[in-house]
Structure formats: structure tokens, C-alpha cells
């Protein structure tokens, strides 16, 4: 796999929108062509080369291309947005929309990601070795089609509104999460290894949520069903299964009503 390395050389005075930083765009381009790609700072259209030193080679296709960003890009948005293949590694933190609308490939952030990362993702892997911001793997405003595929794995804490309107795929949070987990979910799987605050599975139609730690305030529409022994993301244990949200509509499958499932580890 060919590797292109970006070294930040200038911190944007406001922020940078860099939706071009993804293997799909870099593949098959020379270093000069990559440097000439546009980035935006407010109304100003600038070039990638003004903010990054670019070295290495791009592959012929996105799948053959790996982008490594060495340094802090915590004021750069849209890293890996809509990427379909290949790999991006950020050795630092990124701003909003990392891996948003991602369809394939792998994006690793060795740092934190800000809000709206993995938004409406349909495939691929987003690995965050740090903390994630709010709306991780959620739907774009107004859309009922949230995350539909792929995997998001966060080693640290998550924010609020994880997996809103989720319909598929998997989100695993190593640490704690803030309010609203899996709100309006109609599928998919969310694993929280730490604690959750409140509004877990509110208005959930379908899908699975696993919480290893405590939930500060439970939703009133969840009912205890039974205890089950499970292995979840490599951890075995006994879980209490709750179903809900009883206030929400639920589909029927072969005459049986399907609920959202909330598993709480003992």
C-alpha cells in the first residue's frame, strides 16, 4: 500500500474544511496535484499545500492508498469524509466530521475526534484512540437514516447523542458516555463499557444496547425480561435484558412484537 504523509505546517487562523483528505481523492495523483487540492477557510479557497507538507506516493486506487497525518489537526474538519476505501491514520486529534458519511476503508485517529464523526456512516471502520465528541454515528439533521453499517470503536469516552437514528453497524465505546444513547434507533448495536448518564434507548424501536457500567437514570419505558449470559466484544458475563421503549411504536415479525433491547452487565 502506497503511503502519503501530511505534516501540518500552519495552524489555520479560523479552521479548515478539508474534505479532500481521503484516499479516494489522493489515489492516482502526484504530490503536486495533491498539494494543489483545495481546502476552505471560511470564504477563502486555499490549497492543501499551504497547510501541509506532503510526501510519499499515492496508490493507483483508493484501496491502495494510505494517508498518514503526523500532527495536530484539531482545527481541521471532514477528514476521511465519504471515504470508500484505503486507509487514513491521524497521529493527533481531528475536528468535526471525521469519517462522516464513510462508506469503506479504515480511519484511525490516535487522538480525539470532535462532534459528528462517523455521521450517517454506511461502511468501513472508524477507530478513535482517544475520546469522541457528540453525535458519533448519528444521523444528519432531519434524516431518519443514521448509521447503517461499519464499525466505530472509541477507546476513551463518548459524548451525547451516540447512534441517534441508528439502523445498522456497531459502535463500541471503551469509557463513559453522556446523555442520549441510541435515541430513535431502529437497528444496530451500541456497546458502552463504562457508565451512561440517562436517556439510554429513548424512543428506540429496534436494536441492541449493552452497558457494562451503571445507568444513572433509566428510561421509564424499559421492562426487565430475564438474565442472559453473553460474550460482548470479548467480555463474558451475565447481563440483565430489558426491552423497550414501551412508549414507542414497534414492528411485528411473524406475529411477535420486536422491541429495542438493553443489556446491563451485572
Amino acid at each position: 500500500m502506497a503511503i502519503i504523509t501530511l505534516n501540518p505546517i500552519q495552524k489555520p487562523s479560523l479552521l479548515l474544511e478539508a474534505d479532500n483528505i481521503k484516499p479516494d481523492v489522493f489515489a492516482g495523483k502526484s504530490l503536486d496535484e495533491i498539494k494543489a487540492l483545495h481546502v476552505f477557510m471560511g470564504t477563502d479557497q486555499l490549497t492543501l499545500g499551504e497547510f501541509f507538507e506532503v510526501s510519499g506516493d499515492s496508490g493507483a486506487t483508493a484501496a491502495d492508498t494510505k494517508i498518514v497525518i503526523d500532527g495536530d489537526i484539531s482545527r481541521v474538519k471532514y477528514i476521511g469524509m465519504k471515504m470508500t476505501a484505503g486507509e487514513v491514520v491521524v497521529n493527533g486529534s481531528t475536528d468535526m466530521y471525521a469519517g462522516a458519511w464513510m462508506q469503506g476503508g479504515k480511519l484511525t485517529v490516535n487522538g480525539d475526534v470532535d462532534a459528528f464523526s462517523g455521521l450517517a456512516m454506511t461502511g468501513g471502520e472508524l477507530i478513535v484512540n482517544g475520546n469522541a465528541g457528540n453525535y458519533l454515528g448519528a444521523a444528519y439533521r432531519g434524516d431518519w437514516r443514521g448509521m447503517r453499517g461499519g464499525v466505530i470503536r472509541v477507546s476513551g469516552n463518548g459524548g451525547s447523542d451516540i447512534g441517534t437514528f441508528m439502523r445498522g453497524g456497531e459502535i463500541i465505546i471503551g469509557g463513559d458516555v453522556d446523555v442520549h444513547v441510541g435515541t430513535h434507533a431502529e437497528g444496530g448495536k451500541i456497546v458502552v463499557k463504562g457508565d451512561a448518564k440517562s436517556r439510554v434507548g429513548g424512543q428506540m424501536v429496534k436494536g441492541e444496547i449493552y452497558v457494562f457500567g451503571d445507568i444513572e437514570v433509566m428510561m421509564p419505558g424499559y421492562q426487565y425480561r430475564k438474565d442472559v449470559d453473553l460474550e460482548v466484544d470479548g467480555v463474558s458475563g451475565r447481563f440483565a435484558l430489558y426491552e423497550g421503549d414501551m412508549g414507542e411504536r414497534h414492528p411485528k415479525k411473524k406475529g411477535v412484537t420486536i422491541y429495542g433491547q438493553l443489556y446491563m452487565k451485572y
Partner: protein
Amino acid sequence: MPEIKLNLITGRTIQQGVSMEHGKEKPAYRDACGIIEMDSEDFKKLGVWRNTNVRVTSEFGTVVVKAIEATQGPHPGLGWIPMGPWANMLVDPNTYSMGMPTFKGTPISVAGAKEGEQVLGSIELIESECLGGEE
């Protein structure tokens, strides 16, 4: 000095509305909004007189306002400061990435004001906080 913990909420009052329309630079606006309404139980716990100044502090700032008895109570444990600059010294600016600061539900502590600590007018308050040259 004794101190109590309350949950701060803010919002409109008719006095806030009227005084605002008469001019936010006027003392009436300060009198309407530079206050905290507290429950009588909380007055007892804090041990200050009604209609005296208190210093209210949150994780996000601190401000001196006049403590008055709740007009729309009882609501023990809740502190009410009408919407305006005084309340906004204290409220939680966290928007949870949806644009709206958390104007209601900020943990605060209330203590009696020190000798001579006055409730500032809105313009004075904003100027001293924002044009203080500390940045």
C-alpha cells in the same frame, strides 16, 4: 461563610420584560433581573436576610445579585434568576453540539455577599466582564 448549593434555572418574568423594554441601561432592569429568587427553606439554610446581596457562583462564573423570596414557589433547591446578563454569568454554555447552551439546570452555590459588594447595572456588568482587558 455559610454557602448552599442550588440548581439554577432562568427565564422570563413580566418585570424582566417591562424593564427590558424601558431600557436595559436603566436601574429598573437591574432591579428586575439582578436578583435570585430562593425558597424560604433555602433562606433558612443559608442564614441571610431577604433582600440582601448574595454572591452566586457556578463552574462558569460568579455574580452578585440580590436574594429575594421566591415569588412563584415553593421550589426548594431551585434558584431562579430572570434571564439576562446576571444569570448568564453563571449558566452552563455547553450546547451538546446542537447550538443551545444549557440555560436551565446549572449547579450553583450561594453565599452572602461581602461588605460593599453591589449588584452591578447590566452595562457595567458586561463591560467589567468583557472589556476588562484580561484577554
